[in-house]
Each structure stands twice: as structure tokens, then as C-alpha cells.
């Protein structure tokens, strides 16, 4: 892990991966959208509304995967103090918040015609809303300190604490009666979704994953460059202070 924690090596690796991951996400998402919108059957119960699922479910998956990434890198940052791990956690939270927001909004748009309500306070929906607030809290906390390293530490503890929510989201539909339906794909045995509908769903999920990787790499790269800039500015200020008495 130390090998990849080196920022210079990370930058090289990121520039090598980025063209591929961005091309792949564009390809997979456009193929996924084509199948989702034009080349997949309507559902026997939901009709055309089923197509919302092709955006809703991958964003929910990615919202949780992104949080797990954030929690893992927070743990690495707390235990091994890798500077890169803090930057990954910082870079991940706005992306995860966006996926969560997309999931909540698309779910609400589906819920209105299907359930008959925009929102229900059942365990799945509520725990997903809490995930959204965890992301917002993480973003606020990380910037709440003058010293970035203190903000990173506080946010890392928040990210780890909030991780208990992830299994709650996943299993809420099995543990309690919820309005939200149980899992169709990520369960033991055969997925209870038709292959013609599973294809666009998996294409979209893969596309979203590539998009997440692309976004994360770009954001971490920006954070590395920003911290370098900060360091340069600090030395400039320092030398300027030293230089002032000489010029006067």
C-alpha cells in the first residue's frame, strides 16, 4: 500500500488510468441508457416507469460503495497516517453525496406514480436520507478547521462512525417491514429480474462505477496539486518575509 501512497506515483498512475476510465464510462453509460430507454421491455406491473430503476438502483449502489471507499480510506488515514488517504476521503464525499441525491430524487419520482407518495418514512428511505446527511456533515466538518489536518481527522472519525449505517441500509428491507421492495439482484439465488432488464441495469452500474473512479481520480489529483500550491505559497510568503528587510 505504501507504494501507491506516494503522491507522485499516484499522479502518474491517475494519468495512465484516466483516459481509459473516462472513455469506458462514456461508452457504458451511453450503451446502458440506450438499452434502458429504447431497447428493454416495459414491466408487467409498472409499465414504462420501470426505466427510472436503471438510474435509481446504480446510484444507490454507488452511493454505498463510495461511502465504503471513504470509510476505508479514513481508517487508513487514521491508522497509518497516509496523506493520500485523507485526500481520497475528502475527494469522495461530494461524489457520494451526488449519487445519494440522485438516488433519493429518482426514487421519489418513481414512488409518486407507483406507491402513491413521494416519500415514506420507512427504514430504507430514512437510512438513505441519513447517508445523505452523513455526506453533507463530512463535507462541512472537513472544511470547518483552520488546520486542514485537524479537519481531516475529525471527518475521518465521522466517516467511520457513520459506516454502521451501510449495513442498515442494505438489510433494512429484510429486518423490518418497509414500503421499499427487497433486493432483486444482490441476493442469494437467481435475481428476480428478467435478463432483458438486468442487462441495462448492469451496464449502467458498470458505467456509474467507471464514472465514480474517473471523478475520484480527477478530484484526488486536484487535491494533490492544491496542496502542492499551498506549500509553494507558504515558502514564498516565508522568503518574502525574509526578503523585506533587505529591500527596504
Amino acid at each position, binding site marked *: 500500500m505504501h507504494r501507491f501512497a506516494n503522491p507522485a506515483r499516484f499522479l502518474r498512475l491517475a494519468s495512465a488510468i484516466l483516459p481509459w476510465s473516462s472513455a469506458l464510462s462514456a461508452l457504458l453509460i451511453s450503451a446502458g441508457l440506450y438499452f434502458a430507454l429504447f431497447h428493454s*421491455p416495459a414491466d408487467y406491473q409498472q409499465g414504462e416507469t420501470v426505466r427510472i430503476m436503471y438510474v435509481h438502483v446504480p446510484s444507490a449502489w454507488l452511493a454505498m460503495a463510495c461511502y465504503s471507499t471513504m470509510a476505508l480510506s479514513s481508517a487508513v488515514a487514521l491508522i*497509518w497516517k497516509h496523506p493520500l488517504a485523507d485526500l481520497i476521503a475528502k475527494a469522495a464525499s461530494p461524489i457520494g453525496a451526488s449519487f445519494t441525491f440522485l438516488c433519493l430524487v429518482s426514487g421519489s419520482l418513481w414512488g409518486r406514480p*407507483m406507491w402513491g407518495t413521494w416519500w415514506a418514512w420507512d427504514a430504507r428511505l430514512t437510512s438513505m436520507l441519513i447517508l445523505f446527511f452523513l455526506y453533507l456533515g463530512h463535507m462541512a466538518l472537513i472544511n470547518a478547521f483552520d488546520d486542514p489536518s485537524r479537519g481531516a481527522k475529525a471527518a475521518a472519525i465521522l466517516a467511520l462512525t457513520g459506516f454502521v449505517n451501510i449495513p442498515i441500509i442494505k438489510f433494512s428491507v429484510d429486518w423490518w417491514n418497509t414500503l421499499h421492495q427487497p433486493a432483486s439482484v444482490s441476493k442469494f439465488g437467481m435475481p428476480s429480474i428478467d435478463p432483458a432488464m438486468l442487462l441495462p441495469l448492469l451496464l449502467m452500474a458498470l458505467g456509474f462505477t467507471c464514472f465514480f473512479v474517473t471523478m475520484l481520480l480527477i478530484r484526488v489529483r486536484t487535491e494533490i496539486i492544491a496542496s502542492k500550491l499551498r506549500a509553494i505559497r507558504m515558502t514564498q510568503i516565508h522568503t518574502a518575509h525574509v526578503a523585506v528587510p533587505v529591500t527596504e
Partner: protein
Amino acid sequence: MTRKQRRLYFVILGMLALGAATALVLTAVGDGMVYFYTPRDLQTKHISPDRRVRIGGLVKQGSVVRDGKTVHFVITDLTAELKTTYTGVLPDLFREGQGVVAEGKVDRNGVFQASEVLAKHDEKYMPKDVAEALKKSGHWQGETPQK
């Protein structure tokens, strides 16, 4: 023990404690996390009759009677049944044999007076022709109560 190891064990212990605490809280809250009760729960859990509750189950086949804007139907969980009355607009997915969650109170005659009815969707996704083919061939495994 190095400082790194100490931090590692501290994080692991912290996560274990947090997980245990959450598990205890969730078991303690128990029914509080439930979005709806089943008709069976209504009989066994001694829910106070003047409490507003949500009841979830399937709309019993052949039980829907429309009377103008008012709809009478029976919610069943296949072990217990509950007569329900509702006046208002029903969601698209409301139909016999499908899941439903109704909010309201049980009146003196034992009829559930629903003020809100939501349709519950199951986890099955399939095209219309596949569903029809399955029904025709007798391989339909839907939870449609045949009673």
C-alpha cells in the same frame, strides 16, 4: 506495540463497540422501525384500537367492491384478514393480488377505515409477455392468493 498497531487496535475496538451499540439499539427499538403491521400483528400484538396504524398485506382476490369514490377491499397476509374501507384516489399499482399499505384506524365494527392507501411493489421485474407466458404455463410463482 508500535503507535500504528495501537491506532489499528483502537479503530477496530471502536468499530466493534459501535457495531454492538447499534445492534442493541436496533433490537431495543424493534417494532418502532417497522413501517407497517400485518393483519396478523393486529390480532396478536394488542395494538390499541384508537391508535392510527399502517396495515400492509395483499389485496385479496375478488374482494374489491367499488361504491362511487369509496372502495371496499380485504387486506390479507394469508393467515389473517382485515376488511378495509377507503375513499379517495388509489395509486396505479393498486389491484387485486398486489401488495398494499393502508394507514388508518379500526372502527367499532372491526372495519379498517383507511385515510391513505399506498401500493407496495415487490422485487420482481419482468416484461408483460414473460409474465403472461408464465401464467399460461402454470409456472407463475407470484404471491397471488388463490383463496
